[in-house]
């Protein structure tokens, strides 16, 4: 660390920023820096977190222009000299300061049919599944997504195209498409083929590059493109 005081710029709105001097500590995350400001310097600062360990996906913000989980980002990783700029997550409406409204993200998750479509019930035995089958491997690849919206914030297509379902929702759709237990194949293909569907993705790969979980929504979306293209030829639509 270059200095014992950090210069922290926080974007309070599109045209207002506040600069705070925050004491540097060992083992300090970006979330800790934001919390310090709220707890000690400006009690009106708003932000969101819950689990503090990278499981809930509610603390993501723009840190020096890059979307990140703030609870799992050590401040040393992002400091530019002793400075850092923190803003609300991109591509989502701001509620106040660093807290954004995540509803559009989840509305799209549902719109992409990102919900299990099952035929079995609680009275049926649990279906045996071969974990090494290629379908299951493909489904497992995206299953650890914590819907943090980091990929959604990173994607320029989302920025320009309000209807675009976005990487996380589409990745969920792809996971379900490969899930042997899911019966919603046609509904999913339909949902991802509309005007906000997977075909809007330009494979710019920012989703995969910034996903803190090392997931690869880009390849999942490519899978959807293949799947829909195949059914296009088969069904003629």
């Amino acid at each position, binding site marked *: 660390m270059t200095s014992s005081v950090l210069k922290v710029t926080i974007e309070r709105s599109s045209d207002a920023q506040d600069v705070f001097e925050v004491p540097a500590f060992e083992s300090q995350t970006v979330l800790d820096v934001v919390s310090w400001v709220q707890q000690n310097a400006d009690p009106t600062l708003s932000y969101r977190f819950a689990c503090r360990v990278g499981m809930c996906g509610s603390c993501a913000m723009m840190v020096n222009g890059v979307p990140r989980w703030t609870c799992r980002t050590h401040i040393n990783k992002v400091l530019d000299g002793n400075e850092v700029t923190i803003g609300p997550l991109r591509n989502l409406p701001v509620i106040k300061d660093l807290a954004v409204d995540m509803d559009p993200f989840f509305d799209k998750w549902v719109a992409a049919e990102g919900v299990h479509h099952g035929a079995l019930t609680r009275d049926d035995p649990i279906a045996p599944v071969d974990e090494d089958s290629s379908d299951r491997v493909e489904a497992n690849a995206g299953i650890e997504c914590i819907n943090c919206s980091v990929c959604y914030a990173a994607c320029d297509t989302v920025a320009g195209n309000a209807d675009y379902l976005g990487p996380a929702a589409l990745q969920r759709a792809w996971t379900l498409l490969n899930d042997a237990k899911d019966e919603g194949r046609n509904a999913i293909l339909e949902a991802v083929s509309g005007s906000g569907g997977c075909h809007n993705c*330009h494979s*710019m790969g920012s989703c995969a590059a910034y996903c803190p979980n090392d997931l690869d929504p880009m390849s999942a979306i490519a899978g959807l493109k293949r799947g829909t293209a195949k059914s296009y030829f088969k069904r003629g639509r």
Partner: protein
Amino acid sequence: MRAAAGITSRAHPLWLAYILHRLSGIVLALFLPLHFWVLALAMTDPVRLDGFLHLTETGVVKLAEFGLVFLLAVHMFGGLRLMAMEWLPWTPSQKTLAASAAAISFLIAMLFFLKAI
């Protein structure tokens, strides 16, 4: 300033490929009508077409022409790369390999091309 910071923060190879593909697409879309118009002169005014064609001998225009061919190539290989990424169930490293192979062979072809003129 902010915009620049926003863009540099997003610069990674695939994003650069995307932006290059997009910009080349736009320039092609702007250039192509011009190209068509020039060719159409063959019908209306062959002499002027010749005039244009002679222009291609001069440095600036030659450079511009070369630039456009280059853009077409960039866009085409970018597009083929993209379609390979989307449709071929290859591993990412296989795709990188294929793209580099295509780029290298194209470069060699271009060298011959340059020698030819």
